[in-house]
């Protein structure tokens, strides 16, 4: 058959596309369980990082199973509702009005006391940012925090995922005389008291402000629950 005829070219192109598509879908389907597993392990690592436990991919599951003693879902009124805290897709929840959102809570056992871990999700400069913040059982003092991002600028906004930045949150308080003030992310000479403030990132102002808004909005959704537990 003439290799330069139109018919041959059409048949060749169609055959190739169908064959390649079949191979790729087969690979995607077969590798999916492994990939999902990796994402799950990473999520567990992030949750553990918010209570200052460094876990690597090999032991995250084990430590998670040992430390995270209880998980449940609450609504914005603080009532427990049905649902699996670990598998809730925060992106979908945040798109709903706050009354309908499902809010996951993780309880972690550390040195005989319980820390409460809350997932967060917000917007940075270039894309979504997310993280976990853990509170002491007074429901105001931050025990630890971990943040991650999709595409913030390296060296600037991306600094939110470094330990230096995250460690600042330890010991800060989110309530001031019973009012939720969350944490201000700003320069050190501003008027906000030190216990409600961490240093922002120079050159990463929009990411810093996005993180501040994420903390305030998401902790606000938990306000009723936090007040109940106090």
């Amino acid at each position, binding site marked *: 058959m003439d*290799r*330069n005829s139109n018919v*041959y*070219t059409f048949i*060749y*192109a169609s055959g*190739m*596309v169908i064959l*390649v598509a079949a*191979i*790729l879908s087969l*690979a*995607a389907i077969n*590798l999916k369980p*492994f*990939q999902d597993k*990796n*994402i799950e*392990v*990473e999520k567990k690592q992030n949750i553990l990082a918010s209570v200052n436990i460094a876990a690597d*991919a090999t032991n995250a599951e084990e430590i998670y199973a040992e430390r995270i003693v209880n998980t449940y879902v609450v609504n914005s009124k603080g009532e427990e509702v049905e649902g699996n805290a670990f598998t809730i897709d925060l992106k979908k929840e945040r798109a709903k009005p706050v009354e309908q959102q499902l809010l996951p809570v993780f309880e972690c056992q550390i040195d005989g006391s319980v820390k409460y871990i809350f997932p967060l999700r917000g917007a940075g400069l270039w894309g979504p940012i997310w993280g976990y913040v853990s509170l002491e059982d007074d429901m105001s003092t931050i025990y630890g925090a971990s943040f991650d991002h999709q595409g913030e600028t390296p060296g600037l906004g991306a600094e939110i995922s470094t330990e230096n930045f995250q460690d600042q949150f330890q010991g800060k308080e989110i309530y001031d005389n019973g009012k939720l003030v969350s944490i201000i992310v700003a320069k050190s000479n501003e008027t906000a008291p030190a216990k409600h403030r961490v240093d922002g990132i120079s050159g990463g102002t929009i990411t810093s402000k996005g993180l501040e808004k994420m903390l305030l909005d998401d902790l606000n959704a938990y306000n009723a629950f936090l007040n109940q537990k106090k």
Partner: protein
Amino acid sequence: MSDREPLFSKKNLKLLSDPLNSSNPITVQVLGICSALAVTAQLKPSVVMSLSVMAVLAFANVIISLLRNTIPNRIRIIVQLVIIAALVILVDQVLKAFVYDVSKQLSVFVGLIITNCIIMGRLEAFALGNKPWPAFLDGLGNAAGYGWILVVVGFARELFGSGSVWGYKIIPASWYIENGGFYANNGMMILPPMALITVGIIIWVQRSRNRKLIEE
């Protein structure tokens, strides 16, 4: 063919060794620079990137070479692109499944192997006109030529920029200024400009040693 060529004839070995030195894709042909600058801040992603490019280039060369007598001339570039893209997606999926942390570090650069000019260049220049075995060797050789530059640059940048190699600390902690020592990591090494300068130094060394490369 009556007089079959041995698998590792002199000509075939030259396909493997030439790209390592006198026709190196990065330092001589100056192809694939973009990814060479982007992924070499540390040694580990450099090695993974090199291996990924090697897998893609060797297989793409073999596949194109096998198909070379069937590919319609008018759509040959598209056929090459589809095969490269399919292989790259496979590599990306495998990395995501088995070395997740590395795949996160490489992020978009695995996908960008598709646009690595070395690959298209070899398919068009070599695989379309040669048998599968030489094409395979040519792919391996060119990817190795690309890879060793990446590994050298990655090694230098991680050592001087972060004081470690493959993630292990090499510079003793007591040397650092903050611990009362005299040493500080060179933050510039982490940034892409120093990668270009490092590649430039490799080119300089190579040209001063390899007389063939000196232009009149």
